[in-house]
């Protein structure tokens, strides 16, 4: 007999927690996708997304989903079939794992881990393998080039991202995400501003969102690693991008914006977290519509000559203030 060391109540709790995470993981990225349609439509005067279904084009996402589900699943003859098939899952699942440790409020969290920050960063770093596997297994020059760009970009931006996150952890004196949000004070907005800037920039680059969407640059590489994908598998890559944006926004909120802190936060805590996360999501969309794509060499130079020194300087500043105060 296997002893799980849990009674029935605990098992039910685990199931409920897992189910809520899965629901959040499906609902939030779709919500962000819908928001992106609308915000982009307003900012750039795009008319298409405002028509389907009548009021404000509410049915655009449904139509997109139906379109993806109907499309034929094509695997190129020369492709490495098994790797081609699992690459979308490798892109998507790490973000679901990361979401379990991101808290909505002090006691509303999938799993309150002692080193939650490290857990989320580690889970996100695994997602890098998705585009690499997709790019290589497609047997397509453009896909391979896109995969290479993705690899180089993600390696370059992982370092400043981890250093920026380390600065906040050092300021709060803990690696626990709930602990960091609880320790946060409004003046940190100024104190940790460089780290916040570095974290957001590196996060955008990790997600391969514009202006850092070089791996999928459509004018040069078709859609990079995803060139050969069609139908639902392609939709999974899109979903992974939005899921990543949700995790990044939520993590940014918890690390740099105080998470659930705000007026009446003993009741409205989770609402504050969701509001701030939504705001960050809109900022990410806003950056997409207002910045041109960078060049590959500019991208690498930005990471190594600006972001890494900046985050190191922030670490020194954080250490000095922590020791002095």
């Amino acid at each position: 007999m296997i002893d799980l060391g849990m009674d029935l109540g605990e098992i039910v709790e685990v199931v409920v927690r897992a189910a809520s995470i899965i629901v959040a993981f499906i609902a939030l990225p779709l919500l962000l996708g819908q928001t992106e349609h609308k915000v982009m439509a307003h900012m750039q005067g795009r008319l298409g997304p405002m028509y389907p279904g009548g009021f404000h084009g509410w049915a655009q996402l449904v139509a997109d989903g139906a379109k993806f589900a109907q499309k034929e699943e094509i695997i190129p003859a020369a492709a490495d079939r098994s790797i081609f098939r699992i690459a979308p899952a490798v892109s998507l699942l790490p973000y679901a794992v990361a979401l379990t440790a991101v808290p909505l409020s002090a006691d509303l969290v999938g799993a309150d881990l002692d080193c939650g920050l490290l857990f989320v960063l580690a889970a996100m770093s695994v997602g890098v393998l998705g585009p690499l596997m997709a790019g290589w297994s497609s047997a397509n020059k453009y896909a391979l080039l896109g995969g290479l760009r993705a690899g180089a970009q993600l390696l370059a931006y992982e370092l400043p991202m981890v250093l920026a996150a380390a600065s906040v952890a050092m300021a709060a004196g803990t690696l626990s995400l709930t602990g960091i949000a609880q320790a946060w004070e409004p003046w940190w907005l100024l104190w940790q501003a460089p780290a916040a800037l570095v974290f957001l920039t590196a996060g955008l680059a990790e997600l391969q969102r514009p202006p850092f969407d070089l791996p999928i640059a459509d004018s040069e590489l078709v859609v990079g690693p995803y060139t050969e994908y069609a139908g639902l598998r392609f939709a999974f890559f899109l979903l992974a991008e939005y899921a990543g944006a949700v995790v990044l926004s939520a993590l940014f909120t918890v690390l740099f914006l105080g998470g659930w802190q705000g007026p009446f936060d003993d009741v409205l805590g989770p609402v504050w977290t969701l509001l701030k996360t939504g705001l960050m999501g809109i900022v990410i969309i806003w950056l997409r519509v207002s910045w041109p794509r960078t060049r590959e060499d500019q991208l690498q130079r930005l990471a190594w000559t600006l972001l890494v020194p900046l985050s190191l300087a922030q670490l020194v500043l954080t250490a000095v203030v922590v020791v002095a105060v």
Partner: protein
Amino acid sequence: MSGIELIFAAFALLAWGSGLLAVTSKQVVHAALWLVVALGSLAGVYLTLGAEVVALVQLLVYVGAVVVLVLFALMLTRAPIGISHDLDASRGRRLAAALCGLGVAGLLGGTLVAAVGDHEVDPDTATGSPSALGEAIFGGWLLPFEVLSLLLLAALVAALTVSRGGGER
């Protein structure tokens, strides 16, 4: 058998199996991807033993960075889809490699069994927690830690020198 022991055994088996596939796979990129599974399940083994931080760092550094670098380098050079026969070692070398592997495994396993075989270890999360580990590294082990970082810096500079060549550029 408790639940945690079962998970430990599953991760250990996974690490062993994928490690074996990583060295026997006939496709270069598949070997690297099996290495991902092996290193990832090793992180699972650390986790079941209560070493949270080590497990997560294993994931962040080895899966998220080292293997990505390996894959990146493979793709930059030549990593054809399908079996690469020209990378096969001769029968004798394969045998020697298998013997070496078995020998090292036997030596390590034997040493461990002889040294701590009759101890029952209770995996507790207190010693593997971030604060305990931080105090250990920056308290008693500060000097070795700093020397190690110096070693890594030297390796970095050396790699740069080698890759740049000796010419005047």
